[in-house]
């Protein structure tokens, strides 16, 4: 009996493998809910409850915005072979950049564009640093980008508790409210800041075109699929990686500006700005399988999980960490199913 590679699995088998793993993930999650002391069915119901009404859908929508921007960029970065795990920190850098423009530069019609520019720029600097450390010194970007997340986290805590702490706020750790020129318009009464949503859709479309319709995209794909071949072709691997990293960091920075200018209207503690968008977007990108366009579908799916996690937190006062559990299980079941469908048991030696 041998356990070997199946080069061309049938669609039926792929479907079966995914069903098996999703069922296992749901079972394990249900077990955790039970251990925590709530009925699994009730918890699942709450997790999906945002789909039930327009208010819930608006919650999903507002969470889709950063996931779409970051997810599209990460889909590109992962495809090229730059494992950017630091979108969380790049988002926070974007929030810092946006806040600087909003609070410390004279307000005017240029304020919002400038916020996006500086926020995106700082996000790009932050991811570019990791790319440079990898290209120049061979430092593993999974670890460096992850560590950079913690660095910005403390930078933001320092800013909101120290030099940028608001004049008008007393016991709280946040900055003053942004002037009207620095606030993004929203759809009706919801928190859906539509200009950022449009940026996200444009990013997904643009990166898809860039990746599949241009010479640069071709070089990126070659490098990602076969670094050896890329070297024989004389492609400049370092420069290609740096460029993909800069783009994904820029988009994460834009997402950070969207959160502070569209929802909170001030800079506040990092855990309140982001809710782990940077990590959840890894799933968005992984599900999109290296196609930025697919983030248009996978981002709302993960947006639902985040909104559902919030519903669980409110209704059962469950720690928001539950979202990490769902995300971790989902990611494991995806890679597990993918791997399982590519293998077969052979009953001979």
């Amino acid at each position, binding site marked *: 009996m041998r356990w070997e590679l199946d080069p061309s699995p049938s669609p039926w088998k792929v479907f079966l493998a995914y069903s098996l793993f999703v069922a296992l993930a749901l079972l394990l999650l249900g077990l955790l809910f039970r251990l925590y002391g709530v009925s699994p069915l009730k918890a699942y119901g709450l997790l999906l409850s945002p789909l039930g009404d327009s208010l819930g859908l608006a919650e999903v929508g507002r969470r889709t915005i950063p996931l779409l921007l970051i997810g599209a960029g990460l889909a590109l970065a992962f495809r090229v072979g730059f494992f950017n795990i630091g979108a969380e920190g790049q988002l926070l850098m974007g929030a810092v950049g946006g806040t600087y423009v909003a609070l410390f530069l004279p307000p005017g019609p240029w304020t919002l564009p400038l916020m996006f520019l500086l926020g995106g720029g700082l996000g790009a600097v932050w991811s570019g640093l990791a790319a440079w*450390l990898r290209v120049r010194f061979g430092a593993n970007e999974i670890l460096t980008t992850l560590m950079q997340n913690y660095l910005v986290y403390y930078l933001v805590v320092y800013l909101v508790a120290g030099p940028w702490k608001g004049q008008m706020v007393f016991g709280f750790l946040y900055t003053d409210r942004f002037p009207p020129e620095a606030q993004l318009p929203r759809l009706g009464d919801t928190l859906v800041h539509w200009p950022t949503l449009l940026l996200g859709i444009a990013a997904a479309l643009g990166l898809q075109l860039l990746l599949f319709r241009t010479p640069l995209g071709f070089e990126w794909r070659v490098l990602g699929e076969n670094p050896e071949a890329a070297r024989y072709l004389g492609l400049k691997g370092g420069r290609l990686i740096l460029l993909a990293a800069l783009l994904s960091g820029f988009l994460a920075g834009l997402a950070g500006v969207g959160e502070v200018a569209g929802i909170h209207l001030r800079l506040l503690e990092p855990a309140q700005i982001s809710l782990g968008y940077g990590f959840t977007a890894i799933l968005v990108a992984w599900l999109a399988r290296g196609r930025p366009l697919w983030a248009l579908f996978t981002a709302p799916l993960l947006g639902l999980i985040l909104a559902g996690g919030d519903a669980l937190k409110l209704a059962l006062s469950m*720690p928001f960490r539950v979202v990490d559990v769902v995300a971790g299980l989902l990611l*494991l079941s995806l*890679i*597990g199913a*993918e*791997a399982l469908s590519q293998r077969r048991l052979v009953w001979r030696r």
Partner: protein
Amino acid sequence: MEEALVRAVLFGTPMLLASLGALLSERGGVVNLGVEGMMALSALAAFAAALEAGPVWGVLCGVGVGSLLGLFLGVFAVFLRANQFVAGLALAALGLGASGLLGKRYEGTPLPDPLPEGVLAGLALILALGLHLLLSRTRYGLYLRSVGENPKAADLFGVSVDGVRYLALALGGGMIGLAGAYLSLAYRPSWTDGMTSGLGWVAIALVILAGWQPLRAVLGAYFFGLLFFLQFRLQGSVPIPSEAFAAMPYLLVILVLALSGRARAPKALGQPFDRGR
């Protein structure tokens, strides 16, 4: 001075234990990025068991949960040959999330009889020496190194690549579990969400800094421990914001990675082994 050295060793011990655990599986070619989550979940398991049945059961339970989580990673990394990096990150998220969820009822409960830190610190040192001997002097160590460098050749010589890797993940997971137990039973005898505070990530960087050598990991862990001690000591007495001190370990990891980025890793690190290919 003496106090500084003692504190350095005590701060360094969880990092040492966790990095020994990660090092063991990495020598066999399996990357473990799940350390942070494994530590958190085994710290919780150890704490819960110690409350119910005493500290010895706590340690055993922490080690056991660590081993099981190591094998759980093995299901993905070895049996299914999935992407090890992604599987490890997912395990880190799962472990942190599940421990936060399940540990909520233990928050704020003190542990009546904590373990002395010194005993576990000594055990960690013995484990480092033992791991060094295991790798350099035993048949299993030879198999493990060959599986990490050239699994195809090891397979041709009749070594069970998968078996060696499972054992490494279970043993290494146990050490990571012991690191978690040290945190919740001895170092800060309590449970709080996020009590691993990035030590798992530092441990992964430490493996690289130590060039995959257990004895060098000892020096690295104590050096980091000394830096942590200085951070606590200097905090408040110099005009530097406390956030800068809190961020220091992470900055340190980045520096270490940049300085030792091209260190020689086991050749088959992170690559699933497939006989057919």
